[in-house]
């Protein structure tokens, strides 16, 4: 018998290892977090988080925490982002409450093993899919929706029976401190821990080994987290930023379109993963759209948005400077453009005459700036969108269902919404996540539960009917094979009645 070359895993290691020049040989792991991970792991192994009553109690505690400390959350987000009460309640607290309520009312159903369709050979057996918790999950929130991006995955992790370590973003320092103070008062202290880790430490913490890692943030950070997770074969869910395109067709109600876009774009001062990042406007209606946007913004925030209590601020100077830089080096400002560094304030700004090669179109944007580009038709729009990386969302505004259908079927994105923006990320029954460069995996509602569970296949047979089973044993002959083949073809032809059996 010839001996083929046999590549060993050792060869793989040697050839695929990349040399990283200039890096120190020793990694200093954040040791203080190991202790918390250990405690969570011990709790999980003691099966503390698994019982239905425990999960329900924790979910109800999350609800109570949000109810009883609404003012504290409003205050913390006010200090971090100058966020108005309305936005905090409606876009941060209510989505978490909805998720918790949805999980509470569906938990029993989700925890039930699912019966699946059997084939002829398993007609008398039990075929089930059982949902098991994974273990200890690591949830890293982002600063643009600091409460929602931490607590919504946490609700899913709790519902699925896991323990969790939560790391809210340190960029929104007051909110992070609030979560660190409140969570131990409401949730089980052994199963759930809050840590405040800098963005640069997160990849090292991932390497301590978790059973699932949830991260939201930028693509560069996401890639680093993914590489760290690969070291320990940890499954990941990544929700990453990008540039969400928004097409405005010539056949649509411009006033309403402008209103919906303006709300989505300038909400939280444009610091959002799901807001439309740039407009591709049909050339016939561009002037009207820009005019309508201007009117809208005047109605929303008044003539001086700096005075408006409904308008937020940049989270920190780094983001402020980056956004300011992008807006000044791109296109032409037709509205806004004013900045006040002391307040980290950037006025709601609209840019026109933006070119694809401008800095604002090349980099991720977190700020209240809306570039409006001109396109001549839907083909150009689709071609433009497909030249970029797959975004988290694609938006289309049109009365023409064929246009909507075309853009939807000829582009790809995490999610899609026509004639509105952002709302698809608030519907608890829809999966929310990215594709390609905008992320991996999805969550929200049942999808969160599934993300943080392992669906274990169980086939429960008996040792009876050995006469049938023995058809598969050696010595093999063609007669056995014919019987098995016949049984198999009968099975897939009559899948319907097998199910009834």
């Amino acid at each position, binding site marked *: 018998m010839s001996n083929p070359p046999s590549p060993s895993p050792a060869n793989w290691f040697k050839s695929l290892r990349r040399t990283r020049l200039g890096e120190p040989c020793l990694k200093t792991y954040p040791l203080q977090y190991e202790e918390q991970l250990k405690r969570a792991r011990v709790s999980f192994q003691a099966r503390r988080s698994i019982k239905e009553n425990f999960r329900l109690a924790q979910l109800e505690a999350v609800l109570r925490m949000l109810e009883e400390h609404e003012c504290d959350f409003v205050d913390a987000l006010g200090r971090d982002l100058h966020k108005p009460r309305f936005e905090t309640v409606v876009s941060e607290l209510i989505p978490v409450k909805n998720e918790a309520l949805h999980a509470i009312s569906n938990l029993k159903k989700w925890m039930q093993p699912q019966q699946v369709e059997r084939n002829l050979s398993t007609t008398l057996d039990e075929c089930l899919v059982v949902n098991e918790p994974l273990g200890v999950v690591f949830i890293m929130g982002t600063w643009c929706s600091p409460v929602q991006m931490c607590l919504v995955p946490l609700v899913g992790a709790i519902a699925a029976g896991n323990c969790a370590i939560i790391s809210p973003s340190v960029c929104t320092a007051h909110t992070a401190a609030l979560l660190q103070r409140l969570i131990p008062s409401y949730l089980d202290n052994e199963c759930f821990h809050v840590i405040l880790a800098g963005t640069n430490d997160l990849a090292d913490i991932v390497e301590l080994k978790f059973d699932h890692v949830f991260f939201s943030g930028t693509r560069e950070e996401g890639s680093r987290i993914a590489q760290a997770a690969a070291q320990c074969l940890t499954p990941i869910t990544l929700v990453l930023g990008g540039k969400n395109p928004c097409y405005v067709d010539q056949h649509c109600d411009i006033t309403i379109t402008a209103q919906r876009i303006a709300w989505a774009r300038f909400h939280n001062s444009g610091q959002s993963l799901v807001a439309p990042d740039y407009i591709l406007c049909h050339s016939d209606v561009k002037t009207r759209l820009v005019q309508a946007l201007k009117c809208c913004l005047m109605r*929303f925030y008044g003539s001086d948005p700096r005075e408006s209590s409904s308008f937020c601020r940049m989270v920190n100077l780094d983001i402020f400077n980056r956004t300011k830089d992008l807006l000044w080096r791109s296109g032409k400002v037709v509205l806004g453009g004013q900045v006040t560094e002391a307040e980290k304030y950037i006025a709601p700004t609209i840019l026109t005459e933006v070119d694809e090669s401008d800095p604002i179109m090349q980099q991720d944007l977190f700020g209240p700036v809306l570039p409006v580009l001109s396109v001549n038709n839907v083909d150009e729009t689709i071609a433009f969108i497909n030249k970029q990386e797959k975004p988290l969302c694609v938006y289309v505004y049109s009365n023409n269902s064929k246009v909507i259908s075309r853009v939807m079927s000829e582009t790809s994105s995490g999610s899609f919404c026509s004639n509105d923006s952002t709302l698809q990320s608030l519907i608890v029954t829809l999966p929310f996540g990215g594709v390609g460069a905008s992320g991996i995996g999805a969550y929200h509602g049942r999808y969160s539960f599934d993300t943080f569970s392992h669906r274990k296949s169980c086939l429960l047979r008996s040792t009876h009917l050995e006469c049938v089973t023995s058809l598969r044993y050696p010595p093999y002959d063609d007669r056995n094979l014919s019987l098995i083949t016949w049984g198999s073809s009968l099975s897939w032809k009559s899948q319907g009645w097998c199910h009834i059996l």
Partner: protein
Amino acid sequence: MSREQQAVAGARRAFQTGRSRCLEHRVRQLKNLQRLLTECRGDIAGAMKKDLRKSEVVVQMYETLGLEEEIALAVRKLKEWAAPRPVEKNLLTVSDAVYVQAEPLGVVLIIGAWNYPWAVTLQPLIGAIAAGNAAVIKPSEVCVHTAKLMDELLPLYLDTELYPVVTGGVPETQELLRQRFDHIFYTGSGAVGKLIMAAAAQHLTPVTLELGGKSPCYIDSDCDIAVACRRVAWGKFTNCGQTCIAPDYVLCQPAAQQRLIQELHKAIKEFYTDDPKTCPDYGRIINRRHFRRIVSMMEDSTVAVGGDNDEEDCFIAPTVLRDVKPDAKVMQEEIFGPLLPIVTVDGLDEAIRFINRGEKPLALYVFSHDAKVIQKMREETSSGGLLANDCLVHYSVNSLPFGGVGNSGMGCYHGKHTFDRLSHLRACLIKTLKMEGMNNMRYPPHTAGKLGWARFFVLKNLNLGWIGRLLLLAAVAVLAAVVIQKYQLLRQLDR
């Protein structure tokens, strides 16, 4: 441009033309694949015989039959799987279309394994085609003849641009991994799985990893030992133990060990005769490196059955090891060979503790008449899959998701699960520009009044299903009242 780069670029170009999305195209390709399996049965069996000493019957039973079932299922159900999947709406989206749409990902890389090369390489391909993707197929170079045959046959039946085959070893695979894919599907070892995941992470590519582990097999004292041993022997020694879900080791009580060994011996004789070396139904180890690895594992354990081996022929007899200690060489890594260690434990609790000390395996087997024993095992351990009172067969039920957890892998496939795994499930909300009045509450300037309305409408405190039932009840009550009234009126008129 290297050959690998060309193949990937060609696949991407072909995908962008949109032809792989069309349902008729997908069905045609799947039916062509079916024809390949039917028309080339002889060639496939011939190559497998040279690679792994598998007989034609074995190849059909364990490789191609499963594939034909998967193809038939995909062809039958494709329209349903690819259709929009509506979801429950809330009060604010009552007049909108809200659904999830399965879309192709793009270009998928499928890296096959050598132990069941057709099953493990083509099954993900069936799902990739069904989901509308292009796919680059990289068969394992370890099964030389089969890889060569795949390279010859697949282009004759499938669209060559959309589904190119790239053969080769480590350098070729490295080159492939430098390219960008939309999903990577890998079957093989954990060590290589980590490298593949790390390479995929550079491009933020999602992966499905079907890895292995030590699949424990607990044999309770309350079970039909003779039948259990036959099934375990079949599960273990099929393909010479080179199966990712083979029962790796047995856990039993000390009193049962002797009987187990006797029954296993009996089963081995029945299946493979007194001289397995001459038996046509018994396979061989894939190569000398694996042969040496497996033989060295026997060193510090006692052989109860078998033990003979021949390096020249890569033959290792079906072997049972007794009284194996947890720190023995054979218990340190996945065996992937025809050695069946028996480790004694005091009972179910100790067995569960033993299993939980190790990494989560791909499969877990428990033999018992007692449903409570099975339930306890199911609830207190975790594994990719669990099978009670048999081995391996859960693989063939295509409605069950097949995959690992923890170190045994991530992601699952088979049947519809492959389709979903290799699709992007995109959330779609189709609204109109009407009913703008409802939206006014969300626009600045924000007021307490608007906040009140928003709380009412947005907070999910109304179950639409419940409201629907209430409305129905109200409608029925009204109808009943009208009918009763009419009846009474008629009676009055009669009088």
